[in-house]
């Protein structure tokens, strides 16, 4: 009875196959059904930089409580082609139940055979195999037909009555097959449903950033497509009319950031979305933001470099790029959300901070965060307003008026009586070119003064643990959930976790946290420990141990549990 399996509380499903083979269709249908049925779901994917062929996979975790992190373990493996099994070989164990078309898979492993193509052809077209597969997987969870048909209707309604009808038939066929298989092979899945999940938001990383930007009052987005940041561009383009956001695909990233700065100048609230290579082209524009003291919001979704690197994989290798990019000296802020709630909140806050301090603000994410989704119990409220710091000008208005804190009121053309002059050359208070050494020094001081007051609005790191810890784990950005779950699994009371959603500037208080621990461990998805280096730069504190990963994949919970 090798096919007999029993899963409790949590199941990890991995769908794998070639690009374009239908992983995404199965995933969409399945997660829709499972969430409706009241299961917590989390999904993340790893895929190759190609449109057809290769081997891609999607992991979907289905559980009685939230488990939004990547794990190595595969409970249910659904290979769509023979290569997929080889691709996942190292993650398959005796406990993995493999489901698929045995004949097509040609494997020596035992496979729970479901004749997808044959049944789909009976319904009318091999294309329905994906819906049968989704129905089958949902059936293993003992989902009733109600949520299944609702989900199918939502997804296929716009394709017409006939296609919708056949997909319903296919899904129900899948459920029937699952019920038969469970009885015949003694397969039991016991996962408690949580009815409130059905009404929760299920959101993906790029959507959280895009909606957060809108909630921050974003009115302008210019960008050049680049994985893994493109989702934000696509999402806002599709909602441009509804949200009242000007969206433009720029000819290159240089144009994109210069457009963004032009929009801020005219009174827009602008963002660019890009990845490391694209941002490298924006470095001069970033420096311009520093010089003209323009607000700017930069969503930098990291992927492994150098150069083109691994276009569809994940890494946290551009922290120092964000930190040091741009010639000359000027202040900046770097946010690094690790949860989808924080992705929304950081994106929204980036506009507030950029506008208030007239500085560039980064939202540093990565492929892991962009391509992950899960249901969120309490999604943040959309604020009732997005405060604007634009000042009405009077006749003697001067854009760079020297003030105590370094922030000069920011006017825009056409709002008031003054004129608004900005210049990338060193300038005087009025914005006119100057080479006066005293004015130059005063302007440098003015710009750098802002850096000093930025910590007033810093987002503090979040502490997880109890006071008497021996070990302190540091993490930033998308490693949040994997670290959390790894520590929960270990259950060691003497280990605490400090999660940074803002990595620059760092609040001074962190030194207190660091000094209390016997061992401070920094977890980063890069090869050299960039955040550990930043901590040393800012506090003088050298972390004791670094756990680094740079093969293009995110940390898994198991690997962190073992290494911490």
């Amino acid at each position, binding site marked *: 009875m090798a096919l007999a399996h029993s899963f409790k509380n949590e199941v990890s499903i991995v769908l794998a196959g070639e690009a374009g083979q239908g992983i995404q269709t199965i995933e969409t249908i399945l997660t829709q059904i499972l969430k409706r049925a009241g299961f917590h779901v989390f999904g993340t994917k790893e895929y190759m930089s190609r449109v057809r062929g290769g081997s891609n996979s999607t992991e979907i975790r289905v559980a009685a409580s939230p488990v939004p992190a990547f794990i190595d373990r595969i409970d249910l493996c659904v290979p769509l082609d023979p290569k997929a099994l080889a691709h996942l070989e190292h993650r398959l164990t005796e406990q993995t139940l493999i489901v698929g078309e045995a004949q097509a898979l040609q494997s020596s492993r035992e496979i729970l055979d479901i004749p997808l193509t044959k049944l789909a052809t009976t319904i009318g077209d091999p294309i329905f195999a994906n819906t049968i597969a989704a129905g089958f997987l949902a059936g293993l969870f003992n989902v009733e037909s109600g949520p299944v048909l609702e989900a199918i209707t939502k997804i296929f309604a716009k394709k017409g009555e006939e296609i919708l009808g056949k997909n319903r038939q296919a899904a129900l066929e899948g459920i029937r097959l699952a019920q038969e298989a469970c009885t015949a092979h003694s397969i039991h899945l016991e996962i408690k449903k949580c009815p409130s999940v059905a009404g929760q938001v299920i959101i993906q990383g790029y*959507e959280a950033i895009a*909606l957060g930007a809108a909630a921050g009052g974003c009115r302008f987005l210019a960008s050049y497509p680049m994985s893994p940041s493109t989702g934000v561009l696509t999402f806002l383009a599709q909602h441009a009319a509804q*949200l*009242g956001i*000007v969206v433009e695909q720029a000819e290159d990233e240089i144009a994109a950031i210069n457009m963004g700065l032009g*929009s801020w100048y005219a*009174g*827009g609230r602008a963002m660019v979305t890009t990845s490391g290579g694209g941002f490298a082209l924006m470095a001069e524009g970033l420096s311009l933001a520093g010089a003209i003291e323009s607000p700017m919001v930069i969503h930098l979704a990291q992927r492994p470099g150098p150069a083109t690197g691994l276009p569809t994989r994940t890494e946290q290798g551009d922290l120092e790029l964000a930190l040091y990019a741009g010639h000359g000296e000027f202040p900046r802020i770097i946010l690094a959300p690790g949860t989808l709630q924080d992705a929304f909140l950081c994106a929204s806050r980036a506009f507030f901070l950029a506008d208030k301090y007239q500085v560039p603000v980064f939202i540093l994410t990565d492929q892991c965060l962009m391509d992950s989704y899960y249901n969120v119990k309490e999604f943040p409220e959309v604020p009732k307003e997005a405060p604007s710091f634009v000042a009405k000008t009077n006749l003697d208005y001067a854009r760079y008026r020297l003030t105590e804190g370094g922030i000069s009121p920011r006017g825009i053309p*056409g709002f008031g009586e003054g004129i608004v002059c900005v210049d*990338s050359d060193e300038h005087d208070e009025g914005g006119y070119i100057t080479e006066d050494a005293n004015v130059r020094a005063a302007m440098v001081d003015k710009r750098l003064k802002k850096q000093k007051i930025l910590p007033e609005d810093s987002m503090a790191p979040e502490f997880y643990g109890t006071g008497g810890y021996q070990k302190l784990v540091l993490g930033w950005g998308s490693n949040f959930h994997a670290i959390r779950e790894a520590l929960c699994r270990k259950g060691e009371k003497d280990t605490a976790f400090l999660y940074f959603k803002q990595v620059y500037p760092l609040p001074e208080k962190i030194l207190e946290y660091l000094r209390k621990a016997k061992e401070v461990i920094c977890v980063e998805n890069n090869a050299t420990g960039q955040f550990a280096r930043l901590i040393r730069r800012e506090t003088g504190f050298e972390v004791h141990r670094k756990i680094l990963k740079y093969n293009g994949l995110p940390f898994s919970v198991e690997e962190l549990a073992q290494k911490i």
Partner: protein
Amino acid sequence: MGKTVFDLEKCDIAWCPGCGNYGILNLVKEVVSELALDPQKLVFVSGIGQAAKLPQYLKCHYYNGLHGRALSPAVAIKMTNPELTVIVTSGDGDMYGEGGNHFLHTIRRNPNITNLVHNNMVYGLTKGQASPTSEKGFKTPVQVDGVILEPFNPLAVAIALDASFVARVFIGFREHAKEIIKKAILHKGYALVDIFQPCVTFNKINTYQWFRENTYLLDDSHDPRDRTRAFQKAIENKKMPLGIFFVNEKAVFEEQLAAYKQDRTPVCQRAFQPEPIEAIIKKLKE
């Protein structure tokens, strides 16, 4: 010219005596005054170079950004607040060299902005190297044996891209230049005016005299709606024509943006509305 609202009380001009930029500055000032443009609704955008300093010498809103990048913020300013009149004024190196890609794609967009390019066929601020429009054989401290590259032909490129308004003037023919710049500003859509202008310090070949002898005015027989003919005129290089080469009135970029389909209010003037965001989030619950 009498006093205008665009006069600065004092300004320290960085151009050489006799520079063609003075002529352009005065002309621009006259044109925007005669058109009675509201200074509050007028923005000058420039890049870097001697020509790009022009807005510094006017009392006006200006955005003097990066070398080669004048068009990107200019288009964005227009997208963000279509009520503003946007005039880009920069040099041949800035527009056709460093900013070449933006030049191409801005024409494709057709925003309602005016693009004045001071074309003196040489780099002034960096002291005398070849520009994209330098003629073959032009000797400089860098191109020591003379330029061997084909000169960039902005008019032919613009017409090839079906630009909405394409003209060339010579600052020595003042009244002619003035009328055309006026028309360019009034034209609805992207308007390119390539302005021949001598550099008295670094270009001893293309002088006032040279431009007088090597150009001629297009007469009434030229139909600016005829694109093929306009292209033929643009590639004439024995004597170079001056005038309006090509006009093609067509839909303006910013008016076609999704954000302006239902609501014409400039996005910079719109109040924050949580409801549309909440509606999208609500759909994510279904």
